[in-house]
Structure formats: structure tokens, C-alpha cells
């Protein structure tokens, strides 16, 4: 498939082929590679927090175990299931986008967004409980039942990691919303045009991927 055939014909309104790409395949490949490069920086961003976690867990193992057990494992497990299921619907959205089933894409992305909201609501209740009992970072820690060196550090790591992850959930929701609106309004996703859904979905899977590691690290010490 040569670029000239696209440029000259103009029969396909989407996707637009930029002049500097030899073909649509190369353009899609470049888009995907760019997304992977961006996701690599995201992985390294979270890696910084994982290192803090590793170092302080090594230094304060008892505090880590005690603090971890003060979290609500049920809520954490429910949130894990919610996020994994939202990843499934995001993957299904890409699947339907390839088939050009725009209604199904909108439904799957809608479900993903609903579960994302559910995740954040559960997270809100977990945060609220921590503010109520005083398991907070640094000098704001005031929980009488666990008094061990290093416990406030656990909550520093906990809040940094889950808040950064929460921000990613919100950004992912915005990204997927754009695809949702397009699937409803323009309804032009199809075998030649699904990169937008695909890349948005990749971002969402990264959010899921990070949580898959955060969950056992924080809740199951």
C-alpha cells in the first residue's frame, strides 16, 4: 500500500496519513512505538516509588507488616477485581473497534468508565478511613494501636503510590472518554481506524498493570 494511493484518492476520510510516513502500516507502527516509549517512562516513574517501598520495607519490616494489616483487604481485593474487569472491557473495546462495531465500542468504554469511577469511590472511602483514624504520613500520624518506628513511612509510600496511581486513573478516564465520544458521534472506528482506541486502552492497561503490583505490595505484606 503506497502513500500516493491514499493521498490521491482521498476516498478514505480516516485515518489521515501524514506525508512523512511511507504507508498507513508504518504510521500505525510509529504511533504504537511512541505509546510504548511513553509507557516505558511511566513504568520508570512508578519504579521510583517501588524503590522507596523496597528500601523502607527492608529497613522497617515489622512496621510494614503491622501497617499493611491495618488496611482493609476486602476493599483492596474488590478494587483489584474492578480494575482487572475494567481492563477486560477496555480490551474488548479495541476488539470491537477493529470490527467497526462503534456501538459496542461505546458500551465497553462506558463500562470501563463506570468501573473507573467505582474504583475511585472505593479508594475515597479507604482514604477517608485513614484520615479518620490518623494513619497518615510523617508527623500527621496519630494512630495509637500501631506505634512502631517506620510506620508513618509506610503511609508516606502508601499515599504517594496510590495517589499517583489515582491520578493515572483520572487521566485514563479522560483519554477513554475522547474515544467514547468519537464512537458515539462520528462512529468511524473500523479496521483501518482503531489506533485511538488502541492507544487509550494501552494506557488503561498500564494503570491496571501498576495496580497489580501495588495491591500485593501494600495490602499483603
Amino acid at each position, binding site marked *: 500500500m503506497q502513500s500516493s494511493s491514499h493521498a490521491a484518492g482521498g476516498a478514505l476520510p480516516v485515518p489521515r496519513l501524514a506525508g512523512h510516513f*511511507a504507508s498507513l502500516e508504518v504510521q500505525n507502527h510509529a504511533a504504537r512505538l511512541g505509546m510504548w516509549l511513553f509507557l516505558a517512562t511511566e*513504568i520508570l516513574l512508578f519504579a521510583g516509588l517501588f524503590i522507596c517501598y523496597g528500601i523502607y520495607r527492608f*529497613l*522497617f519490616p515489622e512496621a510494614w507488616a503491622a501497617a499493611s494489616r491495618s488496611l482493609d483487604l476486602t476493599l483492596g481485593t474488590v478494587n483489584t477485581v474492578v480494575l482487572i474487569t475494567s481492563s477486560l472491557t477496555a480490551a474488548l473495546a479495541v*476488539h470491537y473497534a477493529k470490527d467497526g462495531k462503534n456501538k459496542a465500542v461505546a458500551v465497553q468504554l462506558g463500562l470501563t468508565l463506570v468501573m473507573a469511577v467505582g474504583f475511585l469511590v472505593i479508594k475515597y472511602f479507604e482514604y477517608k478511613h485513614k484520615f479518620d483514624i490518623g494513619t497518615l504520613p510523617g508527623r500527621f500520624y496519630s494512630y495509637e494501636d500501631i506505634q512502631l518506628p517506620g510506620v508513618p513511612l509506610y503511609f508516606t509510600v502508601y499515599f504517594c503510590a496510590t495517589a499517583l496511581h489515582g491520578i493515572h486513573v483520572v487521566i485514563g478516564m479522560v483519554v477513554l472518554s475522547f474515544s467514547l465520544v468519537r464512537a458515539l458521534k462520528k462512529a468511524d472506528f473500523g479496521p483501518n481506524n482503531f489506533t485511538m482506541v488502541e492507544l487509550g486502552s494501552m494506557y488503561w*492497561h498500564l494503570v491496571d498493570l501498576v495496580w*497489580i503490583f501495588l495491591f*500485593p505490595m501494600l495490602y499483603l505484606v
Partner: protein
Amino acid sequence: MGIANESRQEERNMREEHHGAGRYWLIWGLLLVLTAVTVATGRIHIPTWGLLLALVIATTKGTLVALYFMHLADHRGANRLVFAVSIIFVVLLLSIPMVDLGTRFRGATPPGSTYSDLQAIDIGADAQEGRYGGGLRKEGKMGEGSDVNKK
């Protein structure tokens, strides 16, 4: 030309899926099973191997997500390279500080930590409000930095 071939192959893999939506449901089921396993094994707090087991399960789940949900299995050369290199860097970033920390002179570890001879009480903070332990916030003062209780 090599890149063009790679693009073409990747495009073909992505466009003509060799599988239906069933594969995603299968992966989802596997992820839920693995979540159940990690919760079940995590709750009994296996000493020593608990962390390793949790990380192995999490890595398995992460691999499933990356390969099938993120389509790394259908992608070619460059994408896989980028992902693999980022994972290698994460492992390096994690292991080098840990090796450093694990081989330190005891006196160089933070007071109050398991590997330090100095505990909270030795550094002028009472056990109830160890400098590194945070401790109770009492009326009229905010945790560390206060010398009311210093010996």
C-alpha cells in the same frame, strides 16, 4: 525495508486477530484466579517466601496483561525492545540500592530501623513518639522537632 516489513507484519497481526473476543475473557478469568491465589497466600503471611511468591504472581499477571491485553504478543521488534529495556531498568534500579543497603555498615542505617543498633529511645525520642516512628500527636505540639521529651 526491514522496518517496513516489521510494520506490515505487526499491522497484519493487529488487524486480523487469530482469535475472537474469547481470548480476552480467558485472560480475565486467569487474572481473577491469580488474584484469588495471591489473596489466599498473602493472608497466611508465609515467612521469607511470601514476598517472592506475591511478586511472582504479580509478574505473571502483569505478563498476561502486557502480552494479551496490550497486544505485546502481536507486536514486533521495536515495541518489545522498548518494554523489555524498561523492565531491565526497573530491575537494575531496584536491585542496586537494595544491594547497597543490605551490605551497609550497621551504623550507617537509620536509627530505629531493624538493622540499626540505635533505637528510637537512644536518640532522644521516647518509644511512644520515636523520631522515625512518628508517634502520637499530642496537644500543643506536632510530633518531631520538639525537645520537650528529650533526655
